[in-house]
């Protein structure tokens, strides 16, 4: 084992295993730590401003004072808010639990694809149009059922989800990642440029947002094809979440970027997503005779 290749392979394949007693010790201590941490997180009505409001006879003035101070602090924070960096956007997106994405081709006023995803409900819903065939596809991973509604015939096809299908879904769900230029922020090229767009007209296109551009040079594997790419994001002031994304590209010979497509993003709550599913597929009670229907989209989970 003397060549560097062999050494690299040997280290990569090196695999040590923990002992059973080590596993028990670590897991027991980790469970205890988790229990304490979660207990600490539990909200209590017996603390802070709310305790002041409820219990103290001097409560009202004190609580009002506290709230005024809080409001002042928040307003100062808003006034001194700095420009958003790209890490802030990735961070905000990582916390999102419900999302609705509409993808548009340039010059089109209606989306060619829409996706809703709720991590808390364990559902992903896609609307796509293939020729004249429009359909909704619902992946209800909690109930392990996939439902397709064909709008041309108004019929519903239901199939159980297998482990393999779930793995496929994970891959296709990367389509949701069409809102960020790189699925891992660490893959952003070091020479990529990030900056806020000063043009107020651009930012005004989406209310309560600020617009930023990320530009980079994309090369093919053999470096023969070079494309200049631009990712324009309209970020909501309050949340750092993107509300609209525009994808641009140009060749080396072109001066101006041309828009390729754009994406509009909304952040519905669970109930809104449940209602959308309910409106498309209807409640379970409506089709008790369907032997294949085992999912309960829209039901209480």
């Amino acid at each position, binding site marked *: *084992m*003397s*060549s*560097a290749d062999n*050494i*690299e392979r*040997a*280290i*990569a394949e*090196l*695999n*040590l*295993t*923990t*002992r059973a007693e*080590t*596993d028990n*010790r*670590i*897991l027991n*201590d*980790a*469970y205890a*730590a*988790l*229990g*304490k*941490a*979660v207990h*600490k*997180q539990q909200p209590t009505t017996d603390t802070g401003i709310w305790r002041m409001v409820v219990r103290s006879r001097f409560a009202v003035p004190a609580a009002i004072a506290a709230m005024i101070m809080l409001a002042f602090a928040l307003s100062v924070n808003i006034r001194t808010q700095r420009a958003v960096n790209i*890490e802030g956007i*990735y*961070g905000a997106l*990582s*916390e999102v*639990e419900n999302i609705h994405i509409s993808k548009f081709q340039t010059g089109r006023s209606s989306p060619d694809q829409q996706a809703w995803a709720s*991590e*808390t409900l364990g559902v992903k819903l896609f609307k796509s149009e293939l020729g004249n065939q429009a359909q909704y596809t619902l992946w209800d991973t909690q109930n392990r059922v996939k439902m397709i509604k064909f709008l041309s015939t108004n019929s519903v096809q239901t199939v159980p989800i297998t482990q393999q299908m779930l793995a496929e879904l*994970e891959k296709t*769900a990367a389509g949701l990642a069409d809102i960020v230029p790189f*699925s*891992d*922020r*660490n893959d952003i090229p*070091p020479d990529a440029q990030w900056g806020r767009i000063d043009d107020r007209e651009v930012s005004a296109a989406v209310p309560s947002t600020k617009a930023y551009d990320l530009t980079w040079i994309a090369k093919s594997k053999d470096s023969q094809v070079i494309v200049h790419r631009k990712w324009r994001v309209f970020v909501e002031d309050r949340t750092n979440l993107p509300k609209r994304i525009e994808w641009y590209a140009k060749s080396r010979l072109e001066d101006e970027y041309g828009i390729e497509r754009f994406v509009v993003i909304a952040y519905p709550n669970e109930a809104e997503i449940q209602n959308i599913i309910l409106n498309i597929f209807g409640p379970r009670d409506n089709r008790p005779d369907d032997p294949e229907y085992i999912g309960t989209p829209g039901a209480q989970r």
Partner: protein
Amino acid sequence: MLEEKRLIRELKQGNKEALHRIYMEYKDNLLTIAVSMLHDTYAAEDVLHDVFVSFAGSVGKIQLRGSLKSYLTASVMNRVRDMYRKKKHHLVELEEAGQLAGDSDGPMQSAEFGEEAGRLTDALAQLPLEQRETIVLHLKGGMKFKDIAKMQRIPLSTVQGRYRYGLDKMRTILKERAEK
């Protein structure tokens, strides 16, 4: 990634099963990283223990920016560095007392891993810490050089140099051993 996010969300709700799954998924790789760095099974198990207890105890504050694997690997490396800082201090005391102590704990420890793994960890233990860390992060942590550079706040060329010199040195060490 989505699966990891789901596990973290469940963990934040106090789900022990989620913690169990994360532990079972990463424990062996993290132990291997810690042993490769420390060349001491017991110290490596202590690192693994501290990392997971701290991970579970600070669950409310966890915000994944990259993968869970990178997060846990970085946590192991931080603990390893802490251990080295303490160990260095301890070694100075020992040397002052007229004793000599090496970085390696010798073949007794590595005998538990099997001959091949023992040879590798012995050779790794003879590398400077920075070279060892680069090799282990890249080959066992699955980190790209640019990510290691970012994590350690050093130029990419330095990371590549440490990796190359480290491998060269390992090759020499292993060759010398084979000839003996």
